[in-house]
């Protein structure tokens, strides 16, 4: 079936509204009863360092492709109805939104499972990089969980 990728998977500079993304997901089916959401925000500390702001760099094209792949696999492998995945790029202030995953399902257990899987997988395969600005200078963050 054709998927509305461009709506449900986005890498964008602008901030997003969680309510708006929830409405997009729940608009897909009246069977949705449980929505699990993960929102990642910019903390003021990272590995003991103070962080002033963060800049995300992404591989345009490949990043979107990987997020689409995560959405499609989530919808195939879990008993869920819809998934939206958003990631911001550019400069992000402390406390601001970075990443959002919204999973709508009939049953809440599957919504939670798929949402956790999607954020783990996003971190693992999506070509996005993070530059942290600290009082001591800039650091490209390397993370291997």
């Amino acid at each position: 079936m054709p998927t509305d990728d461009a709506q449900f998977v986005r890498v964008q500079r602008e901030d997003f509204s969680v309510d708006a993304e929830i409405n997009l997901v729940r608009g897909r089916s009246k069977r949705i009863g449980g929505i699990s959401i993960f929102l990642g925000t910019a903390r003021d500390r990272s590995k003991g360092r103070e962080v002033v702001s963060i800049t995300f760099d992404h591989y345009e094209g490949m990043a979107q492709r990987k997020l689409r792949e995560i959405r499609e696999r989530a919808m195939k492998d879990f008993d869920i109805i819809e998934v939206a995945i958003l990631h911001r790029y550019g400069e992000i202030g402390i406390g601001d939104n970075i990443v959002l995953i919204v999973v709508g399902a009939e049953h809440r257990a599957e919504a939670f499972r798929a949402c956790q899987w999607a954020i783990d997988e996003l971190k693992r395969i999506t070509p996005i990089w993070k530059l942290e600005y600290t009082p001591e200078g800039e650091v490209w963050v390397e993370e291997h969980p």
Partner: protein
Amino acid sequence: MITVRLFGMTKSLAGNQDSLSLALTNGRQVKDLVELLDAGYPMIGELIHKKKVLVSVNQEIAHEETEILDGDELALLPPFAGGTPW
């Protein structure tokens, strides 16, 4: 000439360039590209040998023997750090 896109720390290691233009004359596989990087950008070459930086061809992670064809989209990918680190 081939163009290799740079991201994250590989950009910093190449003097903040967004991409490198390299003359790939002695072969047409990813390992030939890595040899060129070893010569011109030894710190990047070392990260590739340690598997800390991956090479992608047409937006897919490539291996040493992956062929490089004219017009292919090449990139160097440091460890991903999307989402939140926690």
